[in-house]
C-alpha cells in the first residue's frame, strides 16, 4: 500500500522547513498544502485542534503535530534511509538535548530582534550571538552537528539560516563577523539538495518579516 503524506505548512515557517528537510532527506513524496494562517482552514482545525498551528504531517490520514515530534516520527517510520538520530542512546540524548535547547532559545530571540527596538533589541542581539557561539562550541571541528552525517540537530537548526539575512538587516549586525564557523556550517548544509530545496529564499523571508513588522507596527 502506498503511503499518503500531506504536509500542512506555511512557506516562511522555520518549523515547517524542518519537516520539509526531513522528508527530503528520506526521499519521500508528499503533497504540500500552503495554509493561510490568518484564515485557518477547517482541515487545520480538524488536524490540530489543540494548537491550530502548522506544520502538521498527515500520514495515511493520521495527523502528527509539533515540528520536532514530526521529525522524530519521520525518522522512526522511515528508519532505513538516512537516519537522523544516531543509534546509541547516549548520542540520541545528546542530540535531543541540543534540539530542545535550540527550540527554547533561538526562535524567541530571533523574533525579538525583528520585532523590537532600542535596548530590548540590543539585548536580544547579544543573547542571540552568545547562543550561536555556544552552538559553535558544540559543533567543534565536525562537519555537522551529527558528526560526519547530517543529523537531527542539523535539521532543527538549519531552517533558522533562512532568516539570518532578515535578522541582520532589521537588527543591523553581521552574524558572520561573530560566528564564522556557524555560517560555514550553513553553507555546507545548503550544498545538500534536501536543504536547498526546502528552505525559502532569504530575500523572500526578509520580505515576509518586513510585512510582519508593519503588521505589528514596528516600522
Amino acid at each position, binding site marked *: 500500500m502506498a503511503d499518503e503524506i500531506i504536509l500542512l505548512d506555511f512557506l516562511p515557517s522555520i518549523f515547517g522547513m524542518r519537516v520539509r528537510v526531513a522528508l527530503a532527506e528520506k526521499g519521500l513524496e508528499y503533497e504540500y498544502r500552503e495554509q493561510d494562517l490568518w484564515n485557518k482552514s477547517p482541515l487545520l482545525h480538524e488536524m490540530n485542534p489543540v494548537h491550530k498551528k502548522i506544520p502538521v504531517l498527515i500520514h495515511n490520514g493520521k495527523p502528527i503535530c509539533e515540528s520536532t515530534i514530526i521529525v*522524530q516520527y519521520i525518522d522512526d517510520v522511515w528508519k532505513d534511509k538516512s537516519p537522523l538520530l544516531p543509534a546509541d542512546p*547516549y548520542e540520541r540524548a545528546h542530540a*535531543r538535548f541540543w534540539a530542545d535547547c535550540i527550540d527554547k532559545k533561538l526562535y524567541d530571540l530571533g523574533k525579538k530582534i525583528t520585532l523590537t527596538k532600542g535596548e530590548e533589541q540590543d539585548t536580544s542581539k547579544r543573547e542571540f550571538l552568545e547562543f550561536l557561539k555556544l552552538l559553535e562550541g558544540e559543533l567543534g571541528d565536525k562537519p555537522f552537528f551529527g558528526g560526519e552525517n547530517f543529523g537531527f540537530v542539523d535539521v532543527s537548526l538549519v531552517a533558522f539560516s533562512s532568516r539570518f539575512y532578515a535578522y541582520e538587516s532589521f537588527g543591523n549586525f553581521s552574524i558572520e563577523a561573530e560566528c564564522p564557523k556557524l555560517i560555514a556550517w550553513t553553507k555546507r548544509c545548503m550544498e545538500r539538495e534536501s536543504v536547498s530545496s526546502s528552505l525559502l529564499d532569504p530575500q523572500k523571508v526578509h520580505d515576509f518579516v518586513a510585512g510582519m513588522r508593519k503588521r505589528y507596527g514596528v516600522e
Partner: protein
Amino acid sequence: MGEEVKLFRSWSSPFALRIVWALKIKGIEYETVFEDLSNKSPLLLQYNPVHKKVPILVHNGRPIAESFVILEYIDETWKQVPLLPEDPYERAKARFWAKFGDDKVLTSVWNVFIKQGKEQEEALVAAMENLKFLEEEIKGKKFFGGERIGYVDLVLGLLANLISICEEIIGLKIVDEEKLPLLYSWMQDFAEAPIIRDNWPPRDKMIVKFQALLDAAIASSSSSSSSK
C-alpha cells in the same frame, strides 16, 4: 559491567520526580545527590553547563539533562517496563501530550495560582480549556499510558500533587470533580499508585514553599504596577 547511576535533584523539583518514578518503575538502582539550588555544586555546573539545572542523570559518568531527554534515555537504555509505546504514531502522540502538559497546562495552572481578581478568573478559563483537552484524551483509559502508567502519566503526574497544593493555598478549585471527572479520577489513581505514593515530597514543606513562591510573585507584580 557494573552500572553506576546517579540522579542530581533538589528535594522539591517536580521535574526530578519524573525521573525518580521512571527509575523505580524500571527497578533501576541509583544514588541520589541532593542539590541546594541556591548554592549549586561545581559538579552540577560541570554536568549541566548550559542550563545549570536539575534533574541530571549521570550514567557511568556521562551526564544527561532535561527531564524529557532523560526519560527517553532511560526507556531506550533499560528496556524492561517500557514507558513509551512501540508504535511510532502512538509515540508521537505521547510526546505531543507531554509537551502540551509542560508548555501549556503547567503554565496555565501556575497563572491561576499567582494571579488575583479578574486576571485570576481569566487564567482559570484558559486553564480549563487546556485541562479539557486532557479530559478528552484520557477517555476510556485508566492512565494516559493505558492500563498502566506510561510516559505521559510520568510527565503530567506532577499535576496530581501540585494542583491540590495550589488549591489549598489559594482556596480555589482548579480540577473540579464535577467539571473534570475523568482527570480528577486520574489524579487520584496516579497519586495512589505504588511507587508514586511513596515518593512525593513532604506536603507540609511543599505548602510552605509554594506559599513563599506566591508571596514573592504577588510582591513583584505589585511593585511593577505601583506606578499605575
